[in-house]
């Protein structure tokens, strides 16, 4: 029964909250969406915490995503023992970096009373829990890169196709279950915390012209209605 809730219902609740919450936040509270960097207040520990954390967790997330979206290709990639070993070792190393990074960020928060709210603690604690359970699972239940494709990946796919296969997760050890449930707890927190900054990865910067010039009315062009949210989103022509 609890498995049904945790793996059949809770993921949908979390995703619904994430999507609805993010839409609401973008519509009415867009100015609150920010990564809220605290580098101004503390510089050194941030470097040793934030850089390893972000790069490691981005790589790990991409691996999770790749294995879920392309299980066949992922399985063939890990088909040879050498490749599987290489992936396990690099995964463990990245996991270690992520855990150390997020732990340092958590410790660092105690020195930043001014810009730290309750939600910062919750987010950091859950992220540490997530990274730590991931590392624990990877270390104690070897070859996760391979068995993930047969267990969690089909479960996630079944969620996506609206036919949740709770049985896929039911027999797994408690640590794996915790890792999965906590992942969706973090998804649910997306709109409620500064994790919302995940939705604004600024890749468009790579091809944007260096100067941004905003006109209330394009020169010589037709008058267009300025959108009502914020100065920067007024009628824009870039040059």
């Amino acid at each position: 029964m609890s498995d049904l809730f945790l793996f059949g219902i809770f993921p949908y609740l979390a995703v619904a909250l994430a999507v609805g919450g993010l839409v609401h936040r973008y519509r009415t509270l867009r100015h609150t969406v920010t990564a809220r960097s605290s580098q101004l207040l503390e510089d050194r520990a941030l470097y040793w915490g934030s850089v390893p954390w972000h790069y490691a967790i981005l790589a790990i997330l991409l691996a999770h995503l790749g294995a879920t979206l392309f299980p066949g290709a992922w399985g063939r990639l890990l088909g040879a023992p050498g490749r599987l070993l290489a992936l396990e070792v690099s995964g463990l190393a990245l996991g270690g970096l992520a855990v150390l990074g997020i732990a340092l960020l958590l410790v660092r928060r105690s020195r930043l009373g001014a810009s730290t709210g309750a939600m910062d603690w919750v987010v950091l604690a859950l992220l540490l829990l997530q990274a730590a359970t991931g590392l624990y699972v990877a270390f104690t239940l070897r070859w996760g890169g391979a068995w993930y494709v047969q267990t969690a990946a089909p479960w996630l796919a079944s969620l996506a196709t609206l036919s949740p296969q709770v049985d896929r997760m039911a027999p797994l050890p408690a640590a794996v279950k915790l890792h999965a449930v906590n992942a969706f707890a973090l998804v649910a927190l997306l709109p409620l915390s500064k994790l919302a900054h995940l939705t604004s990865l600024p890749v468009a910067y790579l091809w944007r012209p260096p100067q941004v010039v905003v006109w209330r009315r394009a020169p010589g062009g037709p008058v267009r209605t300025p959108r009502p949210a914020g100065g920067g989103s007024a009628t824009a022509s870039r040059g």
Partner: protein
Amino acid sequence: MNVRAQISSVFHLDKCIGCHTCSVACKNQWTDRRGVEYAWWNDVETKPGAGYPVLWEDQEKYRGGWTVEGGRPALRQGGPGATLARLFHNPALPVLKDYYEPFTYRYQDLFDAPAGDDQPTARPISLLDGRPIDIESGPNWDDDLGGSPVYAAQDPGLARLTAAEREQLFEVERLAFFYLPRICNHCLNPACVAACPSGAIYKRGEDGVVLVSQDKCRSWRMCISACPYKKVYYNWSTGKSEKCILCYPRLEVGEAPACFHTCVGRIRYLGVLLYDADRLAAAASRPDAELVEAQREVLLDPADPAVAAEARASGVSEQVLEAARRSPVWRFVKEWGLALPLHAEWRTLPMLFYVPPLLPALAGPAEGDGGFFTSLERARLPLRYLAGLFGAGNTEVVEAAYRKLIAVRLHRRAAQVGDLPPAAAAGALAAAGLTPRQADEIYRLTALASMPERVVIPGLAREEQTEPTADPQRQYAAGFGFLRPPVGR
């Protein structure tokens, strides 16, 4: 030709008395909130000095502004790829101690202290988290310490001076300093805009004011390191960048910006400049020594009918054109060549110009020369120091401005006091390339001009541009207050 209008300004440093009235007016209006207590959109520094934030001029440290790579301007802190790679930690970002830790006092202690032999004191506490602190620095901490070995000696601009010149600057009885009020320069080629991964910072097409969209800012903080003037500040409470908005809500209704309005020394001039946007990149790519001249070249004469026609075709309104013709900034910058950009070598094409200060260069008793003033050659503030600030290292442009300032003084001295031989005044004018009429005009705009002459605000016609389509009663974003639109719109 792509003609655009730019609201720009001139600060006349000879008239700055370092009273900070500008800073306080700005502080009370814009940065008195949690998160930006430390931020001074307008600050007044003593030069030579380390400034605010400390050593902001040191671009080896902060990597601000532009360099030239392959004949094109490139951000010194790195291109888009490098910038994205540093999202998680910006190696060139100043931290709070480079500004100062904001503080207040626990005034309640004065009332709650038990009776005793000592006077009660109010302990200083941090505005960040309320813990007691020992104040180590504060706003304008180094005021008037122009010759001090602690503050002034750190000035990056001193590096270009010889040891003898530095010694001379700091010799107490000949100590030289002057005030440098600074606000955002609203540059033509702003590095902060180019560095923002979110595209949150933008330049307004109509008037050139550079603003941060608080809706789009995501706290990537690249603007702060990219601005070589360190005039973008990070609000640590909201996680957004904030900067001088040139009081655009005041400008749009025809009021002078607060720091201009309150300026006691009446050092501030505001007006419209027309420029050719198509020539910006080429101007910003010229060698250091030519940058001041290159910046003057992109400015267009509003009295020229051809320019006016191009401007109309580019969408510049008649009101703005009219204001451009009366612009005091045009006179100081182009017509007379008196006002110079600050640190043009950072290639942002700053649109705030400074008339360099004559006083620290020349104040002192008359000696020899037969004249009332000492000569530029024997000035006690080395020209090379001033050229580092206002000439991108080129002493000639600074010297030319000084020749004119000196000539105006001699000319007026001869006219009003009459203790100078007319030939001396005429000689100085000739050497500076000024006519007596021009000298009188410079004197007038410097010393006598009223507020409407000093601050010429164009009708921005915002209502004309928005009224046909937008309900003027509904304002959804104003300054840094967030007025939420009704849900559903």
